[in-house]
């Protein structure tokens, strides 16, 4: 009854192949996106914007990138942190060397740099598979972090060794730097992730996505029917690194403001991988849900004691947070191993039928 699908007939191939074929879905999603652009900057306080929503969007973008590589193309990669670092540092170099460049262009260029680096580090994937590849991508992670640490040119020879986002404006509004309001940064991040999510969704629905999934499921059979493994895998690495690069640039420019290489270490790679697995491998929506889980649950757990008036010593609170977080992950996986996206899918299917059982 919620989804009255009677009367919705498709009369063209285009409408049949739409991302949201059901009219209610399409309306809801468009309304939701509009609301996301309008409501938080007006209503949310700075804490929610700065500490929750902006990192959520940035992590979601990185998670989409990793999902394309790991969920759709089946290449497990632990180099996400390194590729994000490439994006961040190249964005810094572009922004400081060419101050007149538009900030969006800077992000895109840094994404391209990260894509180039990703292509290079993706070459071993032709020979190495599975968890071995994951560990091999750690070589990329450690090497890139070491490189940015060691070569002072990347930080413009600053004594501090950190990169700081220079103040830039977009359409007259400051979007980076200390004067940029959290609302402005949120809108930019949301715009970028919405566009890139749409691109990703279309990629995976088309020929490229299908070739990735073929390689993931049965790579030898795929090769036999004409999917070229070299091009497909490298394309996956390249596009995934592009997304991670842009996310890395946003990480420094829109969220942290300044960063040292410690911010891009192995923990970040693991964090994004967790988001992808919890959210659901092979699902763009899953990347958002996973990012939401990983960002929101710790904050939720930190704030719950305040809410119920319980005041625990901070160390104990943090330790319990870790324990609950770990237990939640295991619980989620037992109940739904395919991730949050599958939970959403089941919910939707039930909603489509409700109140009928089948």
């Amino acid at each position, binding site marked *: 009854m919620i989804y009255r699908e009677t009367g919705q007939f498709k009369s063209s191939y285009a409408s049949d192949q739409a991302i949201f074929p059901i009219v209610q879905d399409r309306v809801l999603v468009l309304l939701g996106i509009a609301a996301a652009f309008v409501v938080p900057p007006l209503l949310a306080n700075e804490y929610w914007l700065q500490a929750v929503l902006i990192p959520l969007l940035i992590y979601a973008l990185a998670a989409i990138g990793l999902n394309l590589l790991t969920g759709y193309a089946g290449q*497990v990669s632990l180099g996400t942190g390194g590729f994000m670092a490439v994006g961040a540092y190249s964005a810094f170099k572009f922004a400081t060397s060419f101050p007149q460049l538009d900030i969006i262009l800077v992000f895109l260029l840094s994404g391209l740099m990260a894509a180039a680096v990703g292509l290079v580090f993706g070459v*071993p994937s032709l*020979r*190495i*598979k*599975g*968890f*071995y590849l994951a*560990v*091999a991508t*750690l*070589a990329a992670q*450690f*090497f890139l972090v*070491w490189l940015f*640490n*060691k070569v002072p040119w990347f930080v413009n020879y600053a004594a501090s060794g950190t990169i700081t986002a220079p103040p830039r404006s977009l359409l007259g509004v400051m979007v980076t730097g200390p004067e940029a309001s959290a609302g402005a940064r949120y809108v930019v991040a949301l715009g970028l992730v919405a566009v890139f999510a749409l691109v990703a969704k279309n990629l995976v629905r088309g020929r490229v996505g299908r070739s990735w999934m073929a390689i993931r499921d*049965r*790579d*030898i*059979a795929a090769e*036999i029917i004409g999917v070229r493994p070299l091009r497909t895998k490298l394309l996956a690495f390249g596009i995934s690194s592009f997304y991670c690069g842009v996310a890395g640039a946003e990480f420094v420019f829109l969220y942290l403001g300044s960063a040292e290489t410690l911010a891009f270490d*192995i923990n970040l790679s*693991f964090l994004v991988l*967790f988001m992808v*697995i*919890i959210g659901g*491998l092979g699902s763009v929506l899953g990347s958002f849900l996973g990012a939401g889980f990983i960002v929101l649950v710790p904050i939720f757990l930190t704030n719950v004691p305040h809410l119920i008036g319980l005041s625990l010593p901070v*160390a*104990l609170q*943090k*330790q*319990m*947070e*870790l*324990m609950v*977080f*770990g*237990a*939640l*992950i*295991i619980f989620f*996986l*037992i109940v739904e*191993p395919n991730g949050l996206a599958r939970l959403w899918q089941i919910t939707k299917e039930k909603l489509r039928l409700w109140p009928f059982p089948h």
Partner: protein
Amino acid sequence: MPCAPTAPSSTPISGSPMIELLRGVLVAPFADMAGNLTFLTEVLFGGVAAGLMYSLVALGFVLIFKASGVFNFAQGVMVLFSALTLVGLMEKGVPVPLALGLTFLTMVALAFAIERIVLRPLVNQPQIILFMATIGLNFFLEGFGEMAWGANVKKLDIGIPDTSFIVRGVQVNRLELTAALTAAVLVGILAVFFQRTKIGRALRAVADDHEAALSIGIPLKTIWVVVWSVAGLVALVAGIMWGAKSGVQFSLSLIALKSLPVLILGGFTSVPGAIAGGLIIGVGEKLGEVYWGPLVGGAIENWFAYVLALAFLLVRPQGLFGERIIERV
């Protein structure tokens, strides 16, 4: 300080930068090595000792992967947790042998709990889901260990002094020697365990094919508990060795990262591979850092180990001793 080998003298030769670079990479380090054989022996020994310490941690991974097909992300935290339990008990006044026994029992209890809560509900799930479950386990044990035993660094004294003695001009560290010998003995025991005992055979059967093993009556649940307990014991030994070096604290759990190159080089499923991989990575890492490191400013150990392992993988994609992956269409 006891008589130390002299530092290399650099003789600048004018030439093009390219030739300088090639000379620096291909010639000078080897000349350096040849010029001071005692020091080279020390570096090699240091590499062997470090490598064996990495193997200790890698062994835990191998055991679990071999028998249950799970890549146990929580192995590092298990090293930390077991060491914390041991030191915590010792600090409370429990005599050392009893503390060791109690810690082992704790690890067995942990193995039971993991099998019941994590492995049994997730049987037959794809590898990456099980990997994620061990990540959840990692977080849980991290918080639990710290909550139970505190976050301060704790001294672990196993009665071996961390001093060195000189053998023909080469400085040898007692603690490292003990760790190396322990690792070797442990691997020997494990090898015998796997090859000669009934349980070892059952473990190999399970590693080969779960369903076939089930069909001939091997109790999968018992096997898993045994494997995770043995891995816990290996983690305890690794925790003792590493904890004696740095004190028992959170960063012990990060050693797992350093032993991943050992794993991929040796193969995920091979116990001798863990040792061979450890030796190669340990020696390679030290040689690289001491002789080639100064060229690029040092601290290259982290990625050098991975690049080394990667180079080997390109030749043998399943590791030196790993099972050949037979791909079917």
